[in-house]
């Protein structure tokens, strides 16, 4: 059995964190070696990078560092391909970042980026999209195997982080996640919450699918306007459409909050991100709900960033206090869309267990130097990067925008994997992120609600 296969099998284990083998580090290095040898034959961008960096094989984890991809790699396609409907070119771009050839994606009749994503899926490329603040979506490829294993791993992680509770269709569930969409978590979220919800008691903040087109349209219109390719009527119609959608969403949110208000004394399971959760707390307070005025068995899965929302410094305490949550009823996790599965919260601590198929690579801020402790034991702080051994459809090496504190060999609560103690985004910290900007000058001439 290859090291890769051995590690991937853990994704289907109910508790990969405590059952991980003692020689995990060795196994991971061997798996990374196997993955690199195979992938550089398949992924053009990886091969080029390896050639330029002079990496021929993985002898130590240091060798992975110059081969890490940034999130931006996955949105490096020329926007002209999308604006001009050059979907074959998009296939070609996707192909440079994918393990398996993308020539089989049929683009006949594709009209927009969501159609293209559907066609990718039909051809076995289970792309998901991730929206940045830039208005340019990134597209990450995954195979059917990626999807199957990652979903299983996520569900097990949820269970792991709430060991005292079992999914038994006994709760009223509230989630932000729509039933359909390009987001990676859509499928996991539906499967997860369906296990907990009473029949007919799964309430979504919106039923409108999350589309890549919606994310990309403002920036696209900005480009087309700058290029003189749209008239004022089209822009005005789009602005009306956005206003209408916002009205619709606001009404849906209102109804959703009313429903939480109405059901708050029944056992709930609420899934939310920190930013929107703060808004919900404010609205419920306005309705007279007091701190802790919820069913004492209420569970909450909460995480994510605040997406630039202005929150008080103690927003986490205020939000969890408001819902009356004790630590054991918060099923948080640490993850990012580029990662297969989650780093699951280790109850009763505030730390997260890194699954065995994820090799954490803690780097200096500039992302050049590996800081992992040499002896495989000890604590280290720096930029989070990792190698995802499970990733089949794409290269597993990723560098993130997070500052983390990771401990190796902690054995915290019996887990046999590295543990993440603290997570922050560099951009939210006083030290800030190292910014790289490049502005095209015609943008100066564009204004209105489509302006960036």
């Amino acid at each position: 059995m290859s090291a890769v296969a051995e590690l991937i099998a853990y994704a289907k284990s109910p508790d990969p964190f405590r059952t991980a083998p003692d020689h995990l580090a060795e196994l991971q290095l061997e798996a990374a070696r196997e993955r690199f040898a195979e992938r550089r034959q398949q992924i053009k961008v990886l091969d080029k990078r390896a050639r330029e960096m002079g990496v021929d094989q993985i002898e130590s984890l240091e060798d992975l560092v110059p081969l890490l991809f940034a999130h931006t790699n996955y949105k490096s396609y020329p926007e002209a391909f999308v604006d001009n409907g050059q979907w074959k070119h998009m296939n070609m771009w996707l192909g440079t970042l994918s393990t398996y050839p993308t020539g089989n994606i049929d683009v006949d009749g594709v009209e927009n980026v969501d159609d293209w994503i559907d066609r990718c899926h039909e051809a076995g490329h289970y792309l998901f999209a991730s929206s940045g603040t830039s208005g340019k979506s990134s597209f990450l490829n995954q195979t059917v195997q990626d999807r199957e294993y990652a979903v299983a791993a996520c569900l097990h992680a949820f269970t792991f982080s709430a060991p005292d509770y079992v999914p038994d269709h006994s709760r009223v569930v509230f989630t932000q996640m729509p039933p359909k969409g390009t987001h990676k978590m859509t499928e996991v979220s539906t499967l997860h919450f369906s296990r907990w919800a009473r029949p007919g008691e799964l309430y979504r903040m919106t039923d409108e699918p999350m589309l890549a087109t919606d994310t990309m349209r403002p920036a696209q219109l900005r480009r087309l306007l700058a290029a003189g390719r749209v008239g004022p009527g089209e822009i005005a119609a789009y602005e009306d459409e956005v206003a209408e959608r916002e009205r619709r969403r606001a009404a849906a949110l209102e109804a959703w909050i009313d429903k939480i208000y109405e059901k708050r004394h029944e056992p709930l399971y609420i899934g939310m991100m920190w930013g929107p959760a703060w808004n919900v707390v404010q609205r419920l307070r306005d309705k007279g709900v007091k701190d802790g005025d919820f069913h004492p068995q209420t569970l909450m899965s909460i995480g994510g960033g605040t997406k630039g929302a202005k929150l008080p410094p103690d927003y986490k305490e205020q939000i969890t206090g408001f819902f009356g949550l004790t630590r054991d009823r918060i099923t948080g996790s640490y993850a990012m869309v580029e990662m297969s599965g989650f780093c699951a919260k280790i109850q009763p601590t505030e730390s997260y267990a890194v699954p065995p198929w994820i090799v954490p690579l803690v780097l200096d801020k500039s992302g050049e130097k590996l800081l992992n402790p040499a002896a495989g034991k000890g604590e280290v702080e720096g930029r989070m990067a990792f190698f995802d051994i499970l990733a089949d459809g794409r290269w597993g090496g990723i560098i993130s925008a997070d500052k983390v504190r990771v401990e190796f060999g902690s054995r915290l609560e019996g887990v046999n994997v590295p543990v993440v103690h603290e997570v922050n985004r560099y951009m939210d910290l006083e030290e800030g992120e190292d910014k790289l900007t490049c502005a095209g000058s015609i943008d100066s001439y564009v204004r209105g609600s489509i302006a960036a």
Partner: protein
Amino acid sequence: MLHKAVERSGGILVPHVIKGKTITDAQIEHRSRASGDVVLTPNIDLDSLIWPRRETGPAFDTPIGEIIDFLVEVGKALDFDRNAYLQDAAILNLRCNNLGARILENCYRDIRHFFEREAIVAEAEGALGSLDAYDGWQERTVRGSTVSIRAFPPRVVHILAGNAPIVPPITIVRGALSKGVHLLKMPSNDMFTATALLRTMADVGPNHPVTRSFSAAYWRGGDAAIESHVFRSQYYDKLVVWGGEAAVRHAMKYAAPGFEIISFDPKVSISLVGREGLESEARIKEVAARSAADIVAFNQDACSCARFQFVEGATDDVDAYCEALVEAMGQESRYGAGSDGPVPPAPVLEELDMLGMLEPVYRVFGKPDGRGMVIRSSEPVAFNPGGKLVNVVEVPTLGESVQHVTVATQSVGVYPPERIPEVRDGLASAGAQRIVGLGNINAGKFGGLPHDGGWPVHRMMHWVVTE
């Protein structure tokens, strides 16, 4: 003198010139945005930054002929080899400017040409039609009535840009022609050239009305403690802003009834190369050399530098041209670096890396080694090429390139020049402002031509009629 100031204070002294008087009493410390140096400026007396409206400006009634004679004398004193102010400015600017010593020195050596009689007269006549129009009230008969019209001297604040030291001499010549009063706000990446010129002027004519009509100072751009008090219609008629987006947007905030903005906006320049340019190997070489002159001048850090080229021809021919272009961009020129030039910024290099993977849709020529790079495509790239990088876009016909021209397009170099009539109306309609034969974008002479779609001296004037 400046060098002594540097040693004494541990920072770089930025003198101000207020109405002809040089002020070197350094009191305020700034950190240079461009170089990181500590710079020291005099304290700003807000009242000294204006010329009260109840008083006539010093040069309002000076005959234009006398003003031109004076400017010509100032020009003679601007000989770089004999002018210590210019030499000092060049040395200090080297620290915060990206042009490099050789190109920067060439720019300073050219400053005196802006003050040649021929240039000044052409600029004056171009703007108002004749020199007579500058002096006093001109009687005319309009629709049967006799009226008098005066190009009344304006009160103008100028926000200067610092990417190349030609903005101060242009501003000063035009300002002097207008006979108005002018406050020059110096940019953080050129805190020395404007005052070097004004100090030269003060040496030539210590009490001359033109000398007393100019002030130049540095403060941090956007400093409300200064700008919100001074940028008002009660003190000034117009604000002329050169430059980058932030500067222009910021200036726009002060626009109000009676306080008008004249903006020399951020721009990009382009080239159109017809299929004639790809006819033979020799022709390709010649056209590549012309293109390089338009692209690499001022290290591609000016609005006039070509960043996109639309080339008419088959892919193979266009690729052959791209190879010749990289070669040509590596040659040194008066305003351009040779093999030791800048490289594109890191995020652009990353994009190039990616686009290079998408051959044959895109193709990258050259390496990031300072010699120059070309990215060939069939659609313009999404980023703004810079750092000796040009995007060659293949087009089936030159006419097709007009769709990529916008109001942000400044100069268009065309090859062969005989085809200019074929494209000029389309280019102008799309927003372009200047169309030249390929290779001549940066070879133009100052004086007598429109700038950014207008006649700046004409736009500065306060046109008054008595009926």
